[in-house]
């Protein structure tokens, strides 16, 4: 399994992500510079968090025209895996590789804290090692994380189990009280509490929370008790899916 982590000017979680993939997960990981159009044969491309191009015009709007994004689009069109985290999610939406868009948080504040997420669907490359209904605790840190899509698109994604994680209460129940207009458990006002979505081809996933910040056991011991490395489930699921596909392919070729 070979990973690539893209660096745009203004990316700032590229090294954290590469550290987790290389040193915690123990996988080969290469740095991909935005000006290169060569993905170096990686199995999965990660677009990391940060503020690519200073968030000028709209978050992710300029980054999508980087040479590397043409290669990412071709990689995705060929069935290759793409994971977008936070700014990476914004870039994927701007590039049209994921539906919808991310706009200013409902409360106009930059939110930096842990959130709880419910795993909604597991039959995919990104959450297959979780159980549906699992509750993860993973940090968010963003000012423009309010997910917006038209109702028809949201309905379609629900039908096709492409909303993989939703903001929820710590017990896994709905973030939003039917009677209330707003909820502290949905940190940004996202439509239908969406925290992360997958494309129709089921090989591109973007989410606002940062799995790479809930992955290294060395930094999860704080707050009076060890926390689970919930973010690792996403990276491990991707690796598991790639391994399985490889085994199937080699079994197929031996037949």
């Amino acid at each position, binding site marked *: 399994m070979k990973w690539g982590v893209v660096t745009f000017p203004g990316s700032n979680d590229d090294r954290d992500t590469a550290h987790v993939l290389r040193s915690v997960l123990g996988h080969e990981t290469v740095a991909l510079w935005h000006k290169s159009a060569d993905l170096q044969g990686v199995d999965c491309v990660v677009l990391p968090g940060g503020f690519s191009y200073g968030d000028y*015009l*709209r978050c992710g*709007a300029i980054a999508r*025209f980087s040479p590397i994004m043409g290669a990412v689009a071709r990689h995705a069109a060929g069935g290759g895996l793409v994971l977008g985290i936070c700014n990476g999610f914004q870039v994927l*939406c*701007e590039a049209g590789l994921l*539906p*919808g*868009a991310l*706009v*200013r*948080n*409902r*409360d*106009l504040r930059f939110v930096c804290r842990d959130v709880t997420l419910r795993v909604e669907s597991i039959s995919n490359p990104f959450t297959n090692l979780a159980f549906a209904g699992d509750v993860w605790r993973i940090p968010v840190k963003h000012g423009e994380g*309010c997910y*917006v*899509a*038209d109702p028809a698109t949201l309905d379609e994604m629900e039908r096709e189990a492409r909303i993989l994680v939703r903001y929820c209460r710590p017990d896994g129940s709905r973030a939003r009280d039917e009677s209330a207009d707003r909820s502290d458990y949905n940190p940004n*006002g996202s439509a239908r509490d969406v925290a992360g979505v997958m494309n129709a081809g089921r090989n591109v996933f973007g989410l606002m929370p940062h799995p790479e910040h809930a992955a290294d056991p060395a930094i999860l011991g704080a707050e009076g008790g060890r926390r689970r490395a919930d973010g690792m489930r996403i990276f491990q699921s991707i690796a598991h899916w790639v391994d399985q596909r490889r085994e199937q392919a080699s079994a197929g070729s031996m037949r």
Partner: protein
Amino acid sequence: MPKRGVLDPQGKAICSSLHAMGYDEVDDVRMGKFLELRFVDGAAGEERVARVKSMCERLLANGVIEDFRFELVDDGSPGDGPRGPAR
């Protein structure tokens, strides 16, 4: 401009401030962006219109969340040309 139906928390905050100042006649505020583009020449034909529309669709606006409109105006200033001094 943010599309109708898309949450516009900045517009809402501005609207509340106007109400706090006593401008109760304001019913709603939507906040968008204003971009000024300067061209190398004064051409204003169909091709220019088509190209500006394409700029809006491909980069300047995001059709998922924003509507756009544009107008071509002659501000009377002489064209500086492609390598003219920045204003």
